[in-house]
């Protein structure tokens, strides 16, 4: 009872504080200021992104160029999450057999899905991969980018994992792809460090606005991020789905 009271008091205080704070911030007001004489970060980004970097999608420019180091950290957090998941859920064979004897898992989980689902998945899978690759290659031109494209590709793998019980990812290729993508990201950063004197520094060459090859190193970095996110999410799904099907 006391716990309930404390919780409601806490929630009420939080809600009230947030409401009071945000009621003084008008929605839809222009807080960016003029772009010709940028005084805010947003105005600086909106000014620099199309004019200096020639990147159409300002958010990509912010994520990959202006805050590129942050994105490298973000990718490592994702990698750590995948590794942590694998290490927490890893168990030895004997342990599994013991568990299997203790409880009977529903046999439904081990049945294959219907042929309708399997045929549909087979047709959709390459198209989903294509869409994902399109999204991360065009990350600097259209809404989307490495993280979104990677997530789309992982949904394709999820579809295959759900519809085919025997579907196995080639772990060797996955690990290699992931490592190479991560190394590629760091390599691009080191290239900037050696060539221009600061980590992840973009090249001077930027191309034209709205060209596929524009923005210097930004598309390259987002392709690496896309591959890395796709393989990591696929690994996470693979681990989570194989907890049960591993015991036969």
């Amino acid at each position, binding site marked *: 009872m006391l716990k309930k009271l404390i919780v409601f008091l806490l929630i009420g205080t939080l809600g009230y504080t947030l409401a009071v704070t945000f009621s003084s911030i008008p*929605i839809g007001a222009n807080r960016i200021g003029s772009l010709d004489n940028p005084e805010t970060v947003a105005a600086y980004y909106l000014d620099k992104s199309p004019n200096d970097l020639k990147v159409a999608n300002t958010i990509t420019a*912010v*994520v990959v160029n202006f805050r590129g180091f942050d994105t490298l950290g973000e990718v490592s957090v994702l990698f750590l999450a995948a590794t942590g*998941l694998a290490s927490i859920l890893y168990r030895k064979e004997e342990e599994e057999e013991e568990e299997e004897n203790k409880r009977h898992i529903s046999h439904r989980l081990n049945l294959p899905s219907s042929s309708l689902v399997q045929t549909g998945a087979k047709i959709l899978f390459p198209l989903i991969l294509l869409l994902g690759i399109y999204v991360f290659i065009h990350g600097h031109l259209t809404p989307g980018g490495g993280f979104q494209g990677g997530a789309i590709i992982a949904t394709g793998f999820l579809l295959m994992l759900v519809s085919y019980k025997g579907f196995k990812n080639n772990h060797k290729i996955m690990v290699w792809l992931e490592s190479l993508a991560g190394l590629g990201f760091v390599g691009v950063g080191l290239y900037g460090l050696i060539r221009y004197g600061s980590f992840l520094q973009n090249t001077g060459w930027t191309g034209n*606005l*709205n060209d596929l090859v524009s923005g210097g190193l930004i598309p390259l970095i987002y392709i690496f991020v896309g591959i890395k996110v796709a393989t990591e999410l696929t690994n996470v799904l693979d681990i989570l789905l194989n907890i049960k099907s591993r015991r036969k």
Partner: protein
Amino acid sequence: MMEFQALFEQYRDLITIAVYGTAIALIVIGLYAVLMKKHLVKIVIGLSIMDAGIHLLFVAIGYISGGTAPIFSPGNENAGARMVDPVPQALVLTAIVIGFAVTALALSLVIRLYKHHHTANIDQLNSLKW
């Protein structure tokens, strides 16, 4: 465009209450679930709901009435003056990915706890209680 602006000005108070209200309600509901629910999976769902509320709050702060997405697509090259704030959107992109990582790790811990104790009720997971 002008019609939208006029409509937005007309209903500004209502929109403010609706957007901020939804975001704050999501945060509060998520916190309630985290603090009061007994089932571990429900607690993780509460964390995700809180995440969604915070993302909504971020994007709402960055909105500028009548603004377009901050993308200089063909035919839109000189529209920089009427674009919404790109900074909160970039931060939300980061926050979504971190939220995913947190959820995945939390769920794996839940699975491990469930396998060890054969229950996901936090009241029964009392082996560390003293």
